[in-house]
């Protein structure tokens, strides 16, 4: 499991980032003492650092320099300044990439994964979701149930992934559509209905009956 050190002074952002990355299968630690970032760094020995640019007392650039003195771990800057100048400065300081606030957690996870793959040669295994005996492997776009396997289309894969991430909650059609749009699939309401129906049939075929339930006017729920 990869260890990620989060150096971000806004507790809500740090917490949400840590929660989300833990969901993707990473171990995280949030730095709380911004005078002693290097102590946490030495103690936790992370494989990657997520570093805010604006920190109390010393800025992110300072800690980037300090880390670079002793380590080559990938450093991802979180910054509210998205201009070219900041990006160039960050890269010169030894940062590997930069993500502008406000960012999307999905985009952040993708960047983290890309950086880890670049630095360590292989990507962390995307967690396989399990719910009521059904295994979903989003990286391979497959669903497994009782020894049977079904290949999913891109849209079906994304729909099932979103439902899996919200197990036990009703997922609105708007959220599903937005997620699909975010993967460059500009579908309309009808297409979503068709996609969900197809996915349902596939899961039925595997033997997972009534796996996706419909809540009228609300959305879908994993049964």
């Amino acid at each position, binding site marked *: 499991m990869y260890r990620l050190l989060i150096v971000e002074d*806004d507790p*809500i*952002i740090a917490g*949400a*980032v840590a929660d*989300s990355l833990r969901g993707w299968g990473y171990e995280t630690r949030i730095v709380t003492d911004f005078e002693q970032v290097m102590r946490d760094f030495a103690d936790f020995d992370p494989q990657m650092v997520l570093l805010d640019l*604006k920190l109390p007392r010393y800025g992110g650039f300072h800690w980037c320099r300090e880390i670079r003195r002793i380590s080559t771990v990938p450093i991802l800057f979180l910054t*509210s*300044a*998205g*201009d*070219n*100048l900041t990006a160039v400065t960050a890269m010169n300081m030894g940062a590997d990439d930069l993500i502008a*606030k*406000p*960012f*999307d*957690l999905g985009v952040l996870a993708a960047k983290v994964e890309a950086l880890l793959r670049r630095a360590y040669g292989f990507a962390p295994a995307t967690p396989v979701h399990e719910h009521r005996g059904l295994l979903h492997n989003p990286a391979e776009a497959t669903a497994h149930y009782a020894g049977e396997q079904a290949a999913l289309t891109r849209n079906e894969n994304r729909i099932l992934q979103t439902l899996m991430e*919200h197990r036990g*909650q*009703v*997922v*609105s059609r*708007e*959220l599903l*559509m*937005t997620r699909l*749009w*975010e993967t*460059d699939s*500009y579908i*309309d*309401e009808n297409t979503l209905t068709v996609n969900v129906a197809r996915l349902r049939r596939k899961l039925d075929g595997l033997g997972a009956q009534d796996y996706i339930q419909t809540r009228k006017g609300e*959305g879908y729920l994993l049964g």
Partner: protein
Amino acid sequence: MSKQSTDKPLFLFWLRSRAMALVLLLCCTLIFALVLWAYRVAWHAAAYAGLLCLLPLALVFVVDYLRSRARYRAILHLEEGLPESLTYLPVPIEPGEQAAGRLLTAMEALYRRRVTSDDQRYRQMTDYYTLWGHQIKTPIAAMRLLLAQEDNRMARQLSGELFKIEQYAEMALHYMRLDSQASDFVFAPCDLQEVCARLARKFAAMFVAKGLSLQIDVPKGTVQRSDEKWLSLALEQLLSNAIKYTAKGGVRIAWAADTRTLTVSDTGIGISPQDLPRVFEQGFTGYNGRVDRESTGIGLFLCREVCRRLGIGVRLDAQPGQGTQAMLRFPPEGADVE
């Protein structure tokens, strides 16, 4: 200014300024004529003396006029190099000139002080608003992450409003960066398809919330030399307007390779013909703006300013009720831009 138009009034003006001397001359001539007549001097002797006097007099007047004209032109010429040229004011001859010169120097000092303090105030203000723009992004980021944990109508609506706040902050930052740092423009090959796809991801929730369709007809590998961040910002204004002013139907982004034009078309309310020529003006909102109170007349202004710096031609075609087509025409390969 042509010489003809300055010379004639100048001559009259000069004549008036020498009126006293001329009147004096006339008086002297009359007195001489009267006295010489009273003494029965031969008229041709008097005329001869008069003629001889006229010669130096005319010479003096002509020289005086020419000098006066040269001075006038020299001072007029200084106007082009203001305020630095004030040091080249001709040496005053009359007391009035001296006083006017002193007044000008005082004005200049006043002006310089004003400019310095204005510059300083402007810099302080932009520094502060830039800082504010960055400050506001942290709470926006935090709120966005909090809202992402909820999936209900309220959270979606709040996310939508938050998205607008984010856009406005982003626009303000870019507005200030526009003339403060020309060096922030970095030209590199941009994949237009990727730029459009990224914007579509950004606006995904807006499209879904309004139930609009999107079609991107930009072939893979469409590459143009531009600054990706600024280009995205310009395109974002067009896309955001397209969504804002379209209730039914959708938006299409298409690339025409032969004219190097990227077109954002929508099926929205369009723009009235009398508003169309003015939509790129700063602060212009027009009819659509009066209907939609969120319009501030900044978006398209920003778009045009950014495009100007990128060497991109921007144009809108629209008819009320028939939708709007916004076109970005890219500069030819190898063209010189900023």
